């Protein structure tokens, strides 16, 4: 057997082959000559789908003209009106507890679907809600106790009846990490329309709110 000579070419090939032995793990470590500490690890993610329907939905609308009314909690439609002195705001949320997501999980994609049952020529804006509410107790006068985002997550046209969707991925991702999803407020700030959306109590299941949710944990 001839003696093995370590040439630069063989050494380089050795490093290449040696690197391939670590195939499949792209550790991001970069060691310098002065490095004395190293800790590497990896974490795999599980993907899943946990779509939401009216079963896990809670919704209502509040009325400026009836500031202590809770009738929106049992209504079959959710009203949205911008009229001064007679504004109506709607609220929808979903209980994600059935998804069994830890607070280290996150949303890959979340899309909210609503059905416009009464059209109006206005744009409906969707704002995230950050604090707890219930359809059985929320009133116009109770809005002051809610924390609502100042920037709309999205919007949709109410010009015609039918299904409208809003991407809410960032809101749901943040809610999973916070441990609870308090949903969204639906508001029209200009115009004079009288828009209505199907609620979770609507007799037509296709007109109830829903949300597709793809997650990782």
């Amino acid at each position, binding site marked *: 057997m001839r003696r093995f000579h370590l040439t630069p070419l063989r050494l380089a*090939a050795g*490093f290449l082959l040696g690197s391939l*032995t670590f195939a499949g793990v792209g550790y991001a*470590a970069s060691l310098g000559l002065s490095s004395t500490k190293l*800790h590497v690890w990896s974490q*795999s993610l599980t993907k899943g789908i946990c779509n939401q329907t009216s079963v896990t939905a809670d919704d209502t609308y509040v009325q400026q003209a009836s500031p202590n009314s809770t009738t929106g909690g049992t209504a079959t439609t959710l009203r949205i009106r911008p009229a001064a002195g007679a504004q109506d705001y709607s609220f929808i949320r979903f209980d994600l507890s059935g998804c069994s997501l830890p607070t280290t999980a996150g949303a890959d994609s979340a899309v909210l679907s609503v059905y416009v049952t009464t059209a109006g020529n206005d744009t409906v804006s969707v704002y995230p809600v950050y604090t707890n509410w219930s359809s059985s107790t929320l009133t116009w006068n109770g809005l002051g106790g809610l924390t609502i985002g100042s920037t709309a997550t999205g919007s949709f046209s109410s010009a015609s009846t039918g299904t409208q969707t809003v991407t809410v991925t960032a809101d749901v991702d943040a809610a999973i990490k916070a441990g609870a999803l308090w949903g969204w407020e639906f508001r029209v700030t200009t115009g004079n329309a009288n828009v209505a959306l199907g609620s979770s109590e609507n007799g037509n299941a296709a007109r109830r709110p829903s949300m597709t949710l793809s997650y990782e944990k």
Partner: protein
Amino acid sequence: MKRLINILGAVLTAALLSAGVAAAASLGLGTKTLGAGSAAVTGCTASALTATRNVSNSGNVTQVNVLSVPQACAGETLAVTLENSSHTSLGSASTTVGACTGGCTVSVTGFGTVSATNLTAYALSLTG
């Protein structure tokens, strides 16, 4: 046979240089000399820390948060590689762990445009 011995010898050499020793040499094809030393490599933690990520509304990763990083890791470089299901890198970024009291959350940004849907694993390292 000679070629096989040469290849096996080269692989063995690489494995010895890689295994557990931070001989951080970088060799090019024109390299004629090599000095090597060894030093024990330790870590500021032995735990596999938990990482989470935030997303934009369009579903792209905006930052990775590594939770409960021990105080002993302050000053070290935390590097994160995002991988897909084939363990191919989707993007990498790093930051220096700052000082904090107790375990702290370290956020890493700058991965470029990476869809969270394609992210299936993190590869992480702490280097000091």
